[in-house]
C-alpha cells in the first residue's frame, strides 16, 4: 500500500514536471495563469468540473513543490483567503455557468479582493434576521438595503451578499446567497470611524442595485445553508491558532516565556516586585498557557478523527486574555495612558490594543453569543424563548434599536 502510494506520488511529480517542461518559459503573465488554471494545477484539490484534479491535500503539496522547484507561480492557490472562501462555496453550490465565469478569475489572481456583505445595522448577533431585500425583475434581482462591518469594502472587486428573497417564510428559509461585482451602480461604500480613530470597516449602502440572476449561489432561498460552507471556510482561513505559541528565545518552552511581554512591562514600570502585579501577571500567564494547551488537545482530537468541542472554547477564553493583558499594560504605563499621541509609540500601542481587544469579544459573534453556542452545542442545554421561531419573517418584530419614543 505504502509502496503504491509512493509510486503514485512519483507519477504525479513526473506528470507535473513534464507539463512544466512543456509550458513554463519563465514568464508569469495572464496567458500563463490561464494555462495553469485550465490544466487544473491552480486548484488540485477541487473537482475536475471546477478547474481542479480531485487530488488530496498531500498531492497538492507535491504539485506546489514541483512548481516552486522551477520558480513557476500560480499552483495550488485554492487555500488562499478569499479564493478559498468564495471558491469553495461556488465549488459546492455554484451553477456550471457561475463556476465557468468566476472560478478561473479567482484562481488566476484576477479577482483577489473580496468583501462580505452579511451583517446589517439591525442584525448583528441575529444574522438570520437580515432585512436587505433582493427582488426578482426579469433576469436580474434588484437589491436594496444596508450592510455594515464590511472589511475591505472600499477596495473590494467582488462581494458575497446575503439578501432576503422571501418574506413569507421563517427567517432562515427566505435568504439567498449571491456573489456580485462591487462596481455596480447603486453600491456606495462609506468608511466607519472606529473608537480607535481608524477606519478598518465600512458601511455599504445598496440602492436599487441590479444584479444578474446568474450571480445566485445555490438554490433560491437556500442561502443560509450556503452560508454555513462560507463560514466554515472563514473560520478555517482565520487559522484557529491551534497550539500556536512558539518557543521563546534560546529554545525555552512557552511555560517560561509566554508572558515575557507583561514581565517586561512591569519591570519598565518598576512594579515587578508588587505582589498584586505579580499575581495579575501569573494569572494571565496561566490563562494564555491553558488556552494553548486546550488548542493542542483540540487539534489532537480532530486528528484522531471526530470533532472537538474544545475548539469552540478558544475564542471566548481569548477575550479575557486580551482584555486583561492590555488593561494591565495600560495601568503599568500610568499617566501616559491618558494620552493617545502617536509620537509616544509604545503608549499609543497600549491604548490602541486595549480598545482593539473588543474585536475578539464582539467580532464574529459576541462572547455572549459564543456562550449560547457552547452551552447549547457542547453542554446540550435547550434554546431559550424564540419569539421569531416558525413565524413568517414578514410578521416578526424586526431587528434594530428601539428609539426612546418607542418607534
Amino acid at each position, binding site marked *: 500500500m505504502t509502496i503504491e502510494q509512493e509510486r503514485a506520488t512519483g507519477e504525479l511529480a513526473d506528470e507535473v514536471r513534464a507539463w512544466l517542461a512543456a509550458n513554463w518559459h519563465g514568464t508569469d503573465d495572464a496567458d500563463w495563469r490561464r494555462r495553469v488554471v485550465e490544466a487544473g494545477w491552480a486548484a488540485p484539490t477541487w473537482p475536475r468540473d471546477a478547474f481542479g484534479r480531485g487530488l488530496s491535500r498531500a498531492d497538492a503539496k507535491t504539485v506546489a513543490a514541483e512548481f516552486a522547484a522551477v520558480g513557476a507561480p500560480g499552483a495550488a492557490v485554492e487555500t488562499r483567503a478569499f479564493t478559498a472562501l468564495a471558491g469553495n462555496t461556488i465549488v459546492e453550490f455554484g451553477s456550471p455557468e457561475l463556476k465557468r465565469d468566476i472560478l478561473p478569475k479567482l484562481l488566476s489572481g484576477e479577482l483577489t479582493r473580496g468583501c462580505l456583505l452579511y451583517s446589517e445595522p439591525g442584525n448583528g448577533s441575529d444574522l438570520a434576521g437580515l432585512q436587505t431585500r433582493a427582488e426578482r425583475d426579469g433576469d436580474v434581482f434588484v437589491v436594496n438595503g444596508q450592510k455594515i462591518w464590511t472589511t475591505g469594502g472600499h477596495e473590494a472587486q467582488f462581494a458575497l451578499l446575503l439578501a432576503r428573497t422571501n418574506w413569507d417564510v421563517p427567517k432562515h428559509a427566505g435568504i439567498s446567497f449571491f456573489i456580485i461585482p462591487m462596481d455596480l451602480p447603486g453600491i456606495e461604500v462609506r468608511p466607519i470611524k472606529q473608537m480607535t480613530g481608524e477606519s478598518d470597516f465600512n458601511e455599504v449602502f445598496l440602492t436599487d442595485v441590479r444584479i444578474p440572476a446568474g450571480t445566485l449561489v445555490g438554490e433560491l432561498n437556500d442561502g443560509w445553508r450556503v452560508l454555513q460552507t462560507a463560514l466554515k471556510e472563514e473560520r478555517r482561513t482565520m487559522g484557529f491558532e491551534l497550539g500556536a505559541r512558539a518557543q521563546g528565545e534560546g529554545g525555552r518552552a512557552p511555560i517560561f516565556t509566554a508572558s515575557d511581554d507583561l514581565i517586561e512591562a512591569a519591570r519598565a514600570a518598576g512594579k515587578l516586585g508588587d505582589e498584586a502585579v*505579580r499575581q495579575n501577571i501569573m494569572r494571565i500567564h496561566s490563562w494564555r498557557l*491553558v488556552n494553548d494547551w486546550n488548542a493542542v488537545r483540540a487539534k489532537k482530537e480532530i486528528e484522531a478523527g471526530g470533532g472537538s468541542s474544545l475548539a469552540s472554547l478558544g475564542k471566548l477564553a481569548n477575550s479575557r486574555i486580551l482584555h486583561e493583558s492590555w488593561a494591565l499594560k495600560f495601568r503599568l504605563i500610568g499617566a501616559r495612558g491618558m494620552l493617545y499621541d502617536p509620537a509616544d509609540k509604545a503608549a499609543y500601542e497600549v491604548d490602541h490594543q486595549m480598545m482593539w481587544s473588543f474585536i475578539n469579544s464582539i467580532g464574529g459573534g459576541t462572547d455572549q453569543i459564543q456562550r449560547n453556542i457552547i452551552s447549547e452545542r457542547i*453542554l446540550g442545554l435547550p434554546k431559550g424563548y424564540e419569539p421569531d421561531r416558525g413565524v413568517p419573517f414578514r410578521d416578526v418584530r424586526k431587528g434594530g434599536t428601539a428609539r426612546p419614543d418607542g418607534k
Partner: protein
Amino acid sequence: MFGSFTEDQLQLRELVRDYLRDKSPESEVRRLMATDEGYDPAVWTQMAREVGLQGLAIPEQYGGQGAGWTELGIVLEEMGRALLCAPFFSTVVLAATTLLESGDEEAKQQYLPAIADGSLIATVALTEEDGRWDDSGITVPATHTPDGWTLSGAKHFVLDGLTANLVIVPARTASGISLFAVDPAAAGVTRRPSITLDETRKLAVVEFDTTPARLIGAEGGGGPVLRRVLNFAAVALAAEQTGGAQAALDMSVEYLKTRVQFGQVIGAFQALKHMAADVLIEVESARSAAYYALEAAAQDNDELPVAASLAKAYCSEAFVTAAHQNIQFHGGMGFTWEVPAHLYYKRARSSEVFLGDAFAHREALAQRIGV
C-alpha cells in the same frame, strides 16, 4: 505525549471509572465519611490486589507495575470525580513518592511492596500547627540517642494520620531537615482525629513524646526530597481536582436540564447557560493544566516545578468555581445536606488550601520562571 492518551491509558480510565462507580457511589461516600477511619478496608485490599491501583506507579522491583505519573493521574482524576473515601493520596502520592525520592534502598524494599499489595497505609506528617507547607514550617526536633533517633512534638493536618501504619515525619536535626519513619504503635505516639470541613478527607493530629524513629535517607537530606515530593503531589492533586470539577459540572448540567421553573427547564435561561459555559472553560482548562503537568512529572523534566505550581493554582480555583456554581445552580436544594453539591464544594475548598493555595502557587510560579 501531552494532548492524547494511548489505548492502554484510555482502557485504564474506563476500568477505574467503572470500578469506582460500583465501589464509591454516593451512598458509600456518605457512609464512610461518617466514620473516623473514612475508608472501607475490603475495598482498599481489593483495589490493591485485584485492580492494582496502589502499586500502579511503583517500580516493578518494589512489587508495583512500573507505570508512570500519567497513569496515576488518570486514576486520581477518576477518584476525584467519585469523591473516593480512601487513604490513597496519603499512601500512594505522599508516602510512596517520598520513599522513592529518599534514596534509601532499605526503606524502599521494606515499605513499597507492602504499599503495592494494600497491606500498608502510610502518610507523610509534614505540617505543624501553623500549617506551613515549606521547610520553615518544620520545627519538630529529632534527637540522636545511643539507642537511635527519637522524636518529640506535634504534627497537624496529617492526612489519614489516624489510620496510617507508617508515618513519615520530616523533623529537624543538627544537619537540617531529615526524614523519619515512625510506627504509630510505638511508645509516645498519640493520635486524634480532627474535625474536618471535608469529611471525605480525614485529617489527624499526631503527637510524639520521645518516640523511637528510624532515619530515612541521609541525615539533613530531607529538604530537597520534600521539595520534589511536593511538586509531584501538587500535580497529583491537580489531577484529582480536575475530576472533582468535572463531576460538579456534570451535576450542574443534569440539574439545568431537568429543573422546571416559569414553565420551562431552567437550562434555557441565558443567565444560567452563560455561567455553565464559563464553568466548562474552567474545567477544560484545568484538565489541560493537569495533563500538561502530569506529562512533566512523567518525564521528570525541567518544566515540572513550573507546571506543578501552575496546575495546582489553576485547578484549585477551577474546582472551587465549578463546585460553587453547582450550588448556585441548585438554589435552595444546593444548600441542603441531602444534595451532594456540598460534598464537592467542601472537597474543593479543602483541596484549595491543601499543599498551598493558588496565591502561594502563583507566586511560586513567578519565582520558578525566574521573575
